[in-house]
């Protein structure tokens, strides 16, 4: 924040194109598309739809959480497979749930530093293809076997292998657990629900609203430009709408669900949490000068961003810390914003964030400021639904938030500023400030 004054002179970062795939439920429509396939589909599509040619690209940065073992540095594999020229370097970034956002902010930093003019950035995730792993004792025994030469040496090692646990470890579940505090993400949401006194009914109402908002927006055709058509094997039937949205979702149906993370007394259920899904989102960022010189249409500008740490056991509050830091450094308040997206990792977590943002006591205690930053009103928050309805492909969501906010500013509000923020497993928050116009008074 000390560099704020310097940053005023930095290049404006324009976003010239963006697209995302529909989000498919785990082992659903995208069952046979792996991370690389999803990434390639979206990269090809964003390049085809924008006037930016693949030869214009200087760098590729893609966020991904469950990085596949068969495609190390998945960004590079995606870039090459999608036909991005070989000379263009590519790297993968990982900041858990904010990986897609990290890719975009990294891209913006490179542009601001003058190290790149055009960067293809985004996020991709196939939670379907999270692997099953062997226990570490099994691995150790296998390693011994490869060193054993004679039958006498091999026999005891084989015994050891036979005795080692054969039950697979589920990488997806392990990935969604914080090793430092030993809590699953759902359990951290339970912590917030208890501490902020968020009832089951409040959570369910919020979830129903998310589904209804998403379904209505889809029905109105609002998402048609944001989401590409995917023809997914093996049936190659067209997929356009996000698979998880339930237009008919009712409170009664949600109330029947049992809590999953804190049985039987908890309040976080599968119905009021984000869905495990697959998807990809890609954006093309360019310096304002480059975009203007080439005559590319600009969707909007990425003004600023901030990441902040917090208690891993209360990682859901990350957005409060990140948003506060971001707004403070920009000298703004929530009332300046036309739209806000807080990623709905859990309904309880979003509601907790709202309460924390409104609480002077919380601001005093944790943010070191006397007055609360203020919570966004429901009519500017997650207007077109959120992850409870669509799903939350962890490495991709950050990019999706940026994309949807750009379109909301362009199509809904007719300009203005917006903040997209999300909580990050491990106790962090990330937030980006997006504007329809370049930051005032600069070149």
């Amino acid at each position, binding site marked *: 924040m000390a560099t704020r004054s310097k940053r005023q002179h930095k290049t404006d970062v324009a976003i010239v194109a963006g697209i995302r795939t529909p989000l498919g439920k785990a082992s659903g429509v995208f069952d046979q598309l792996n991370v690389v*396939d999803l990434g*390639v*589909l979206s990269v*090809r*599509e964003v*390049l*085809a*739809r924008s*006037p930016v*040619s693949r030869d214009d690209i200087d760098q590729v940065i893609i966020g991904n959480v469950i990085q596949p073992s068969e495609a190390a540095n998945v960004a590079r594999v995606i870039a090459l*497979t*999608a*036909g991005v020229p070989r000379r263009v370097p590519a790297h993968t970034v990982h900041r858990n749930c904010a990986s897609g956002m990290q890719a975009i902010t990294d891209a913006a930093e490179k542009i601001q530093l003058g190290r790149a003019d055009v960067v293809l950035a985004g996020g991709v995730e196939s939670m379907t293809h999270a692997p099953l792993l062997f226990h570490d004792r099994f691995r150790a025994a296998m390693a011994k076997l490869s060193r054993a030469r004679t039958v006498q040496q091999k026999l005891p090692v084989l015994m050891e292998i036979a005795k080692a646990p054969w039950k697979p470890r589920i990488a997806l579940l392990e990935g969604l657990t914080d090793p430092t505090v030993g809590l699953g993400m759902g359990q951290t949401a339970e912590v917030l629900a208890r501490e902020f006194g968020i009832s089951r009914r409040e959570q369910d109402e919020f979830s129903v609203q998310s589904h209804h908002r998403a379904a209505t927006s889809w029905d109105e055709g609002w998402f048609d430009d944001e989401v590409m*058509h995917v*023809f997914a*094997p*093996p*049936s*190659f*039937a*067209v997929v*356009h709408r996000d698979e998880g949205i339930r237009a008919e979702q009712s409170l009664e149906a949600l109330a029947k669900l049992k809590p999953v993370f804190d049985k039987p007394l908890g309040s976080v259920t599968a119905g009021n949490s984000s869905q495990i899904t697959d998807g990809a989102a890609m954006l093309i960022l360019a310096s304002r000068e480059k975009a203007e010189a080439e005559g590319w249409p600009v969707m909007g500008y990425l003004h600023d961003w901030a990441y902040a740490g917090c208690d891993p056991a209360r990682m859901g509050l990350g957005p409060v810390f990140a948003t506060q830091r971001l707004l403070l450094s920009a000298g703004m308040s929530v009332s300046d914003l036309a739209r806000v997206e807080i990623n709905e990792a859990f309904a309880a977590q979003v509601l907790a964030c709202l309460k924390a943002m409104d609480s002077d006591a919380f601001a005093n205690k944790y943010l070191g400021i006397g007055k609360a930053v203020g919570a966004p009103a429901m009519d500017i928050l997650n207007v077109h639904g959120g992850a409870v309805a669509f799903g939350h492909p962890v490495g991709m969501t950050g990019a999706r938030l940026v994309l949807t906010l750009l379109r909301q500013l362009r199509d809904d509000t007719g300009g203005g500023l917006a903040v997209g923020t999300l909580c990050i497993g491990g106790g962090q928050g990330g937030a980006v400030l997006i504007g329809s116009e370049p930051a005032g008074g600069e070149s």
Partner: protein
Amino acid sequence: MNVVSLIREANIARLHFERSDKPVNVLDDACIVQMEAHLEALEAEPPEILVLDSGMAGCFIAGADLDMIAAVTDEKKATQLAERGQSLCRRIEVLPSVSIALVHGACMGGGLEMALACDYIVAVDDKRTQLALPEIKIGIHPGFGGCVRLPKRVGWIQAVEMILSGRAVDAKRARRIGLAALCSKPEQQDDAVSYLAAKGKVKTRKFNPWWLKLWPARVLFFQQVEKKTYARLKHLDVEAAYPAIPATIALLQEIIGMSDGQALAREAESLGRLAVTPTCKNLIRVFHLGDALKKQDAAKRGRKAVAGFKKAAVYGAGVMGGGIAWVASKTMDVDLHEVDAEPLARGMRGIGRLATRRGRTDSKRLNRIRPVLDSSGLSDVDVVIEAVLEDIKVKRKLWAEVGKYVPTETLLLSNTSSLSISDMQHRRANAERIAGMHFFNPAPKMPLVEVIAGEKTTDNTLDKTCALAASWGKYPIIVADRPGFLINRCLMPYMVAALNLLETGQKPEHVDGVLKRFGMPMGAIELADRVGLDICHHVGAHLAEAFEHQQAMPGWFDRMVEAGLLGEKSGKGFFVYEKGKQGVLNPELGTYLPSARVKEQEFDADMAASADVMTAADIEDACLIPMLVEALQCLSEQVVEDPLHLDAAFVYGIGFPPFRGGLLRHFASYDESALTQKIEALGLITPDNLEVLHEFQ
């Protein structure tokens, strides 16, 4: 001229194949004579190591000289030819030197047999390195000892497969199956030679698999081989059509366990018999015809421009459009455009099936095809191919629309089967870049592509179009912008003739059976079903309108179309179709075809009608002569200029049996006056350029 030279350096002698008169090394007379001289020198003073290599890029030895085989007319001479080659190989084999063939590039037929005579083969890892014994494709089998040596090298099962299919293996696979002793990178050739030289000369090779030594297993094995091979040719009289197939199977079965000398003698004898068959001559001819189309001047001129093509847009995701998209994805990225998601999904599903072979999906190539529902991605396309509805208005509109987005040098190609390209160009700003590129169904399989220039098409556009087709492994043929172009125009009288036969009481199964036995890939009636009766009707009406002499489809055929019996796509036409498989005769046929109804009523139809069942020869003539007459008419109208191209077109476009050498070649064997009589008996006008056939005898 030197085509093979002997270079000695220290303990290594090299037989270096390199020639300036041909683009590839072939074993022709000059080469064999020089080899014999070098071998004498080598025998007099054997080196420690003998290396066979080639100085030609992308080619080791492409095989024996085809013209030499084509020219042989005497069985004894052919046997002698084989024996001469065999003795060359034998002499290399028995040299005391360790012999190594350094195979970098195509190693076919006689070339591979020569390499097999060496102790070791080093396959250099390169896309162009392909090893094969493709003799079966020209109606013979390997004759320089390949039938004897290959089984020793790779085992009988693999060898029988390679010899009977003629399929090539690449360097990696050659190493895996034991054909090559090493698969090396180009830079490692010297290391490979010294590594293998250290291993010494190969004394004995293991017989593999051991159970083939047992007589009953051997009989069973070859029964299976025969069954599998014949399955592809089930409608043909294989003995007459492809004599090489039974002869090769018999030869291989005979020589198991035989001494080398005896086996080689049998091989040479059998080759002598095969090399003089008309099938062999015809297949060589057809091979040359295809090659001539692929390497025609237009294709050569456009090659350079097309090499830089990166992206194609295909409009229409029907069977044709999907097939074309798949073909194009061989060399470039493809955008597959369609108006609605539903047909696009169907098209992608079809492409998904094309991409999957033996359970494995070529996802890399599949990833290149992007399904598109809007007008995105057109700003950098190099070629647009449309396969949309056959309606001139739709196509003209498309070119106007697409013209707004694409770069100014993009090729605009129309896969039309009946519309005029000149009409399409009328008042279009991009007229000079519009041409016709007509694929045949199924596009990924049929090698022929008709290339059509409209009035305003520039030569440059035409060259690029031909080169584009050639780059996808297709055979382009330039035809004039006349209704139906060449193939469809000639197919229609053939189909009408077959329908007329039905009217006179011939059974559809009988007509189709005769044509299939003749060698056509499917009968004329089934063809109508597969193409779609509505499309046949449409094209037929169009051609009858354009040409006075062409007959339209019979009235009962039109009624079938109206009733929705459209063939394969509606599940019912002349036959019933289930999941693409042809089933029984459609029982409803009697409603439309009067003669079919009569038959049904008489229970003993076969007995009663046997009097007027036509002979196979009569049916062949009745169907094919109208096609011939139309083809000759096309020649005199200069729809296609070179009559040789016409023969190639029929083989590669509609699968006219290649062992018959082509349509004109087939009829050239007829007596002219008898042919004239037959033409007149069919009520057709004898074409005045019948003498063209003389050149084809």
